[in-house]
């Protein structure tokens, strides 16, 4: 059994958890929304958070970057850069999304993202681990390309209208759990009509919730388009993980990894969410955060 440096686990792990909790609270200051079913409409809603949290959540005071991107691309009038007149905002959101990725890869996934935090909490319940095919991790790139970019931009079925935000509309479990369910519950059947779309998305959300207890962070592994972007940028990011030559290949890092990877195989893996749990878990102390301009050595 590899020796675990418990002091360092406690300190860095506690700090990360504190940051996750603080972020979740900071992005949800409109707590009264949960009492009266209203949404916050103030000026801060113009800004995105570095993580996945639905702007339609009653307590949310900021906007989701994935949702904002889709809505910008779906704007009526065709290609946003040419006709909708909002190239500046689109550029701003793209820059906001890409910058953390190029600086620190998927670090926001483990330290800030509220939906990642929720999955971490759900995984405190340990159901027997499901063995899912590794290739499922590719799905998130296809989701990014299709549901976040191509379909909102290109699928126009309403004359005079725009596209639809297909990731929000048909997939996102974060939106279902934090926005869809509360809004439908508050309405209590008075004015809303719930049909196929709502039940389909609810099924996805329930599946993610249940799976989170068996597989750690299934949404982050298989579905998250934001993680897909940050993961790709993280392959060359300024800060990353480094594995030194004192690594013996014992696999202790993999046993504690929320993403189920062995960091020594690819220190700049697009799956790594830079949580740092592997650092104190390594009996040789071979793993560290490193600043590396360009690809990691070995």
């Amino acid at each position: 059994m590899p020796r675990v440096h418990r002091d360092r686990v406690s300190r860095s792990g506690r700090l990360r958890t504190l940051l996750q909790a603080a972020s979740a609270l900071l992005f949800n200051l409109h707590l009264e929304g949960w009492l009266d079913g209203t949404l916050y409409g103030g000026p801060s809603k113009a800004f995105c958070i570095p993580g996945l949290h639905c702007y339609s959540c009653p307590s949310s005071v900021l906007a989701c970057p994935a949702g904002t991107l889709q809505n910008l691309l779906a704007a009526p009038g065709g290609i946003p850069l040419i006709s909708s007149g909002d190239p500046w905002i689109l550029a701003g959101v793209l820059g906001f999304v890409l910058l953390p990725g190029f600086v620190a890869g998927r670090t926001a996934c483990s330290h800030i993202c509220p939906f990642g935090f929720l999955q971490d909490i759900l995984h405190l319940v340990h159901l027997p681990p499901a063995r899912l095919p590794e290739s499922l991790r590719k799905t998130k790139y296809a989701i990014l390309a299709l549901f976040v970019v191509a379909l909102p931009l290109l699928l126009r079925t309403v004359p005079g209208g725009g596209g639809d935000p297909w990731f929000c509309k048909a997939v996102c479990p974060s939106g279902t759990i934090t926005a869809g369910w509360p809004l439908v519950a508050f309405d209590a059947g008075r004015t809303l009509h719930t049909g196929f779309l709502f039940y389909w998305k609810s099924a996805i959300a329930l599946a993610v919730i249940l799976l989170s207890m068996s597989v750690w962070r299934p949404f982050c592994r298989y579905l998250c388009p934001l993680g897909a972007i940050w993961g790709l940028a993280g392959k060359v990011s300024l800060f990353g993980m480094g594995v030194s030559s004192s690594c013996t290949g014992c696999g202790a890092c993999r046993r504690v990894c929320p993403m189920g990877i062995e960091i020594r195989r690819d220190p700049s893996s697009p799956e790594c969410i830079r949580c740092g749990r592997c650092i104190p878990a390594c009996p040789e102390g071979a793993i560290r955060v490193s600043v590396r301009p360009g690809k990691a050595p070995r």
Partner: protein
Amino acid sequence: MRSSERFVLPAGLILSILSLLAGILGYVLGDSGEVLRKAASVCLECIGIG
């Protein structure tokens, strides 16, 4: 291949900083209608209630 890999990070950082600045500039100069208006109300079917 290696030289183009080393090029990606600086290019990515510069482009994303410039994009972010462009967005801030656009926001300051008043082009905030698009994002703000979406924040005030929510399209139900767009978040999967339908």
